[in-house]
């Protein structure tokens, strides 16, 4: 019982610790600023654009700070930027509609690829020569030279 309470308290502490980090304004500014692009055409992440005389990045950063000061949540802030600057302001495809395809396809191909390679390995393994236990085939002449060559290639040392 006591152990359970200690575990619960530890869990609560962790949750509080993580939540404290999440609500920190500077952390949110950095996170959101890295999820948006500068729209001046430099193709840089908003917080990484330092082009001298950039007409956009300073203004966008100020707008982001103002939104955070107002207490807007992340979704509201991002959608207000999309409304103002267009969909290209978001640095990565959103997890909605057709944009989901962008995220799904690489992982799907990875899974299919792994399944494919494993199937291939199994198929090739099943083709391996199976000899009855204890059977020995005599190796002579050119075949012996070939095996020697193979052994040299395999060991390489």
């Amino acid at each position, binding site marked *: 019982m006591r152990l359970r309470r200690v575990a619960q308290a530890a869990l609560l502490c962790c949750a509080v610790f993580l939540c404290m980090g999440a609500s920190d304004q500077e952390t949110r500014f950095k996170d959101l600023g890295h999820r948006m692009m500068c729209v001046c055409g430099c193709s840089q992440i908003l917080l990484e654009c330092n082009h001298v005389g950039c007409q956009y990045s300073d203004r966008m950063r100020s707008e982001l700070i103002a939104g955070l000061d107002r207490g807007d949540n992340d979704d509201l802030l991002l959608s207000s930027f999309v409304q103002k600057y267009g969909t290209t302001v978001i640095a990565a*495809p959103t997890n909605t509609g*057709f944009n989901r395809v962008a995220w799904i396809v690489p992982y799907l191909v990875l899974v299919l690829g792994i399944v494919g390679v494993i199937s291939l390995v199994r198929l090739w393994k099943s083709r391996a020569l199976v000899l009855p236990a204890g059977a020995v085939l005599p190796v002579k002449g050119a075949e012996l030279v070939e095996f020697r060559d193979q052994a040299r290639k395999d060991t390489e040392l």
Partner: protein
Amino acid sequence: MRYKTDSRLFAYASVIIAAVQVFFLLLLNFAARPFVGTPGIAPADGNGLNPLLQYPEMVIHPPMLYLGYVGFTVPFAFALAALIMRYPGEKWIHITRRWTMVTWGFLTCGIFLGAHWAYSVLGWGGYWGWDPVENASFMPWLTGTAFLHSVMMQEKRGMLKIWNMWLIFVTFGLCIFGTFLTRSGVVSSVHAFAQSSIGNWFVVFMALIAATCAFYFFKNKSHLRSEHKLESIASRESSFLFNNLLFVLFCFTVLWGTLFPILSEWVQGTKVTVGPPFFNKVAIPVVLLLLLLTALGPLLAWRKTSIESIKRNFTWPALGALLVGVLMMVFGVRPWVDISYFYSLMAAMLAILVALTVISEFIRGGRVISRHTGMGLPGSMLHLLHRNTRRYGGYIVHMGVALVIIGFLGSAFNQDAEKEMGYGDKMTIGPYTLVCRSYTQEDKPNYGSEWAIIDIFRGGKQIDTMFPERRFYKASQQTQTVPQIHSTVKEDFFLVKDLYMVYEGINQDTGKPIIKAHLNPMVPWIWIGWIVMIVGTVAALVPNAAPVRLTAPARVQTAPVGAD
């Protein structure tokens, strides 16, 4: 003089190379003539070179990439020639192996020089932005790396003949595709230095290449039949299969991300941005898996590896990697706080695992030679490298990759600060205090500049003075920052950092300069790792030394006791 022994193969390959050359000559003479004058009145002294390109590395970065792209024509031409003429055996691979490695080396140099240029010139504190043109150079590098590994399967086991053929076709196709992306303007890129309307020419050429390759492949497919037999999943063959899967998947992911904005616009009518957050999220797990295979692969034998052998060879490197992970957590890396910390921790452990397996392979092989020859261990390891340059040169390249990854993972711990700094003003970043000693202006024939003099202190002791600068180029009427970088190699060698400083401009209200500072941990390891990769590539190109001939000690003939 090799062409004398394989004159027909060389003749076919030469025709294919000449065909590629004809395409580019047509392009230069009819579509994109380089010596055509620009419309309008030209300035007396010309427009001047783009300020971004006025940097020494820019003299060698484009030729390196060029050699990387162009060089893949040779293995492609030999592969296609071998397919067309049903050339027996793996000789085309032997002939083109050095070409492929040299080309791969040039492409590696080109990519890293570009990254170093971006870091030293662009002033955003990073070296890779997943820009479409950067991706264009990275994709053939990935498939080329897969090819360098998978040809070993064909050479040693006669496997993957079709795969290798298509891998080099795709690599060459991606080189052409990269040129198309750079020059056609089909995707927006910061590398739009030389856009023109030659995209259609490239589309036709790529279609021709694909049609030619497909035609001869289906015509002569039977020639590429190989005996696919695998004795165990715990074998070098399996590791190469997974390695190739991951490299090709990585390449597909980069291609997918690069072209998704076009696809999105076509499907839903609106363009989306696919920037670094997408690539980092999708690519990092693949890189981690590749690192794991890089560590495991060399420990696996061809055909079959016993569990005992894996345990014996893997235990110490794995313990070393675990120790590094524990130390990182003890010194404050909390993988549960942020996913980037988790990835960094994993990347560090796997990179150390790769490095330790490479070291253990050298030591193990060196000991064997030392035992048989009586040489010291360092000399034996050098001899080992010389005995099988391809294998051990490859391991040095793996070591370089591990160092590069260690350099990349530092980005999770980057810090930055920005401040308006008048005379004597201070700014703190990490353990460093920056003090503005002065700021001034200067006029030169090519540009006018504003710059600050910033003293760097650590622990109350001055360690350097930096001069971040902003230039205004007169001919092109463009402004350019010139970042200053101080690498802390002397202060902390293993956990080296870059103090990266940018002069952002002058606040018109106060007249004081605005200075931005980044503290980028581990970045110098990227450049060190790159050099190690090139050293490994060069080592792998050196011909093997003749094997040491061991002579059995002569038996002493002794006369039997009592004999006359």
